[in-house]
C-alpha cells in the first residue's frame, strides 16, 4: 500500500513539475519570439489598381458561403446604393437577371447550426453556387467584413473557396493580417481592396458598382 502510494504520488508530482517547468520555458520562448518578430518589417500593403473596364453591375444578389455576415453585407450594399437582394441558398433561377453575385465569406458555427448544415456540406454547396455563377457569366465579388474572428480553421475553408473563384475581393484589414487574401489575390491576379471599416467598405462597393456617392 505504502510503496504503491509513494510511486503514484512521485509520478504525479514529477509530471506536474515537468509540465510546470516546460510551461515556464514556453512563456520565455514566446516573449522572445514576439520580440524578434517586432523587429521584422510588416508585410507590404498591396496597392490595388482596379481596371477601368471592371465595373460590377446591379442588381446584386447577396449570399454567403459559411453562413456568416450575409445580412451585414446586404445592408452595406443597400447603404452603398446598390439594388440588392439577400438569398442564403441560391438556386440556379435566382441568378437570372442578376448583375453581380456578392458573396460574404467566413464561417459561423451559429449560422451553420441555424441552417442545420455542417462545414463540409456548406463548402460543397458554396462550390456549386460559385460554379453556377461562372456558368451563368455572373461576376463574383467576395466580401470579408468579419475581421479576425471570421478567420481560423472553420472560416478559412469557406474564404478559400470564395477567394479562389472571385473576380475581386473586398476585405476588412483585420481579416487579412496574415496576408491570406493577399496571397490568393496576387496569385490569381485579381484586385483586392483592403478596407479599414464598414464605412470604407460601403465606399469601395459604391466605387466598384459605379454608384454616385450621394445616393
Amino acid at each position, binding site marked *: 500500500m505504502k510503496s*504503491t502510494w509513494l510511486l503514484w504520488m512521485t509520478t504525479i*508530482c514529477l*509530471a506536474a513539475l515537468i509540465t510546470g517547468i516546460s510551461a515556464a520555458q514556453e512563456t520565455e520562448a514566446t516573449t522572445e519570439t514576439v520580440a524578434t518578430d517586432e523587429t521584422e518589417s510588416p508585410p507590404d500593403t498591396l496597392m490595388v489598381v482596379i481596371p477601368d473596364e471592371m465595373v460590377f453591375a446591379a442588381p446584386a444578389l447577396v449570399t454567403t458561403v459559411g453562413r456568416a455576415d450575409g445580412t451585414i453585407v*446586404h445592408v452595406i450594399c443597400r447603404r452603398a446604393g446598390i439594388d440588392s437582394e439577400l438569398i442564403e441558398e441560391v438556386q440556379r433561377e435566382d441568378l437570372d437577371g442578376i448583375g453581380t453575385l456578392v458573396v460574404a465569406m467566413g464561417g459561423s458555427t451559429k449560422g451553420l447550426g441555424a441552417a*442545420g448544415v455542417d462545414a463540409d456540406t456548406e463548402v460543397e454547396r458554396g462550390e456549386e453556387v460559385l460554379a453556377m455563377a461562372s456558368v451563368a457569366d455572373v461576376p463574383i465579388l467576395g466580401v470579408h467584413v468579419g475581421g479576425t474572428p471570421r478567420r481560423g480553421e472553420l472560416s478559412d475553408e469557406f474564404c478559400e473557396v470564395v477567394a479562389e473563384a472571385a473576380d475581386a475581393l473586398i476585405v476588412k484589414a483585420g481579416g487579412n493580417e496574415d496576408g491570406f487574401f493577399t496571397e490568393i489575390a496576387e496569385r490569381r491576379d485579381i484586385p483586392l481592396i483592403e478596407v479599414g471599416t464598414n464605412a470604407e467598405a460601403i465606399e469601395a462597393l459604391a466605387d466598384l458598382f459605379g454608384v454616385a456617392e450621394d445616393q
Partner: protein
Amino acid sequence: MGVEWFIFIAMAVVFCGAVILFRVPVGVAIALGAVSGGLLGGLGARPLEFLRQITEGEMAYFDPTLYILSATIFMVAIERSGLLGTVARWMLVTFHRSPFLLLTAVTLLVIFPGMMTGSSTAAVLSTGALVTPVLMKIGVPRDKTGAIIAMIAVYGLCAPPVNIPALIICAGADVPYLGFALPLTLLSFPPAILCTLWLGHRYAKGVRLEDIESTLPESVHGQYGYRLYLPLILLAALLIGEHTVEWLSHLGLPLIFLLAAASAPLTGRWSDPWSITQDALRRSMAILGILMAIGMFIQMMTYSGARGAITTTCAGMPRSHLYPIIGTSLPLFGAVSSYGAASVLGVPFVLSLLNKDVIITCAALSLCACLGDLTPPSAKAGLFAAAVVKERNYLRILRHCILPAALTALFGVVVIIFANELKFLALYETDAYGVGEGQARVVEPPPHQMLSAAAAPPVKDPMPWLLPLISLLYRLYVGFLAVAVLVFLWRDSGRLTKINALMLLVPLILRFFLVV
C-alpha cells in the same frame, strides 16, 4: 506562471506527505492539501473568506453526496432483504455453464444504471453490488472483480442517454445535445464488453454447480415470492420513467434510489431503516469524506490560480501535440474530478477542434473525460468498486484498469482524428425542432416592418404543487441524514473517520437550513 505551479505542487506534496508519512486517510489528507493551498494562496490573512471558500467548495459535491448515500442505502437494503443473494444465486445457477454469456450479462446489468444516471458510482453501488458475488463465485479474484465493475461503470457513465461530461462539454460550447445516441453507444458498449471479456475470460472456464453449491448465497425466493424483486423493478422503472414520464423527471436520483430502497425491507427480510442508514454511512463515509475534500481542493486550486495554470498549459501547447494531450490530460484531470475535466479542459479542446464533426468530437472527448473516474486519488469508480468487493486498497483494483483505460483513451483519440469520416453516425435529429433540410433557406423579412411572431413551442407545465412537494421531501431527507451523520460521528470508533463525518455534517446542516 511559476507561483501557481509552486502552490499546486505544494498542495500535492502536503497531500502525499500526509498519506504516506502520517497514514492519514485520503479524504483528510486532501483536505489538508486544500488548506495548505488556501494558506499559500493568501487566504491565511482572511480567515472568514477562507472558511467561506472552503465551505463553498464542499457544496460542489453536495448533490453527488446525496445520491451516493441513497445508492449505498439501496445497496445495504437489498443485501439485507435477501434480494442480492437470491439474484446472485439465480444468475450462477442459470449461467454457470456459459460463462461468456454470464460476463456479457454482467456487463449489460452494470452498464444500465450508469446509462440512466450518468454516474459511475450509482452503477457500482446498485447492479455492481448485485453481480459481485456472482463474479467471485465463478473464480474471478477480488481485485479483478472490482476492476471489471469499475470499468463497466465508467463505460456506463459514457453510454447514452445520460452522459454528464458530454452534456457539460455541449453546454460550454453551445452544441445541442442531439444526435449523440449512436456515437455514444458505439463508444461505450463494444469497449465495455471487450474489457469485461478481457479481464474475465481466464476465469470463464465454467464451474460445476456442485463445487460451489455450499458457498452459494441463500435464496429467499421461496419465502417471499416475486414481491422480493420489487426494489429492483421499482428502481429500473423509475430510472426509465425519469426520461419518459414528465412528472417523474423531477424526482432526481437521490429520491429514486431512496424510494427503491424503502421498498426493500417491506418486500423481503425486515430490517430497521435506521440501522440500514448507519450501515450505509459506515460503508461510504471514507469516500464521502474524499468527495467533500476534493470539492475544497478544487476550490483552492481555482482560488490560487493552479487550475488556470494547468488549463493554460494544456490549451497553450502547440497543435501538433493536441491529440496526445487530449488522450492524457482529460483522464488525468479526473484525479480531481471527471466532470471538472469535461468543463475545464473538454470545452477548450472542442473549441479548438471546430473543423471536426462536433458531435463525434464531443462524444469522444466525453469518453476520455469519463476515464477520469479511474484516476486516483478521487477515482470514484475504483473507490466504490473497492468498497463493494470489500478490497481495502483500491489501487489494487485500479492496477488492472490501467491498460484497458489507456486503450480506451487511445480509442477516443482515434475517433476524434477520424471524426469527419465518422460523422454519418451522428444521426442529427432535425425533425424534433423543425430544422429540416428544406427550411434552411432563411427568409428575409420585408424591411422596416415588424412581423408577427412564429408559433410558440408547446409549453408543458407541471402540476403547481409537485415541485414544492419534492423540495420539501429533499429537505426532510437532508435533515434526517444530518441527524444520522451526527449520531454516526459519536458512535463510530475511528478518530479520523469522525473528521470525515464532520466534513459531511456541515454541508448537510447548511442545506437543511437553506443557507447555501
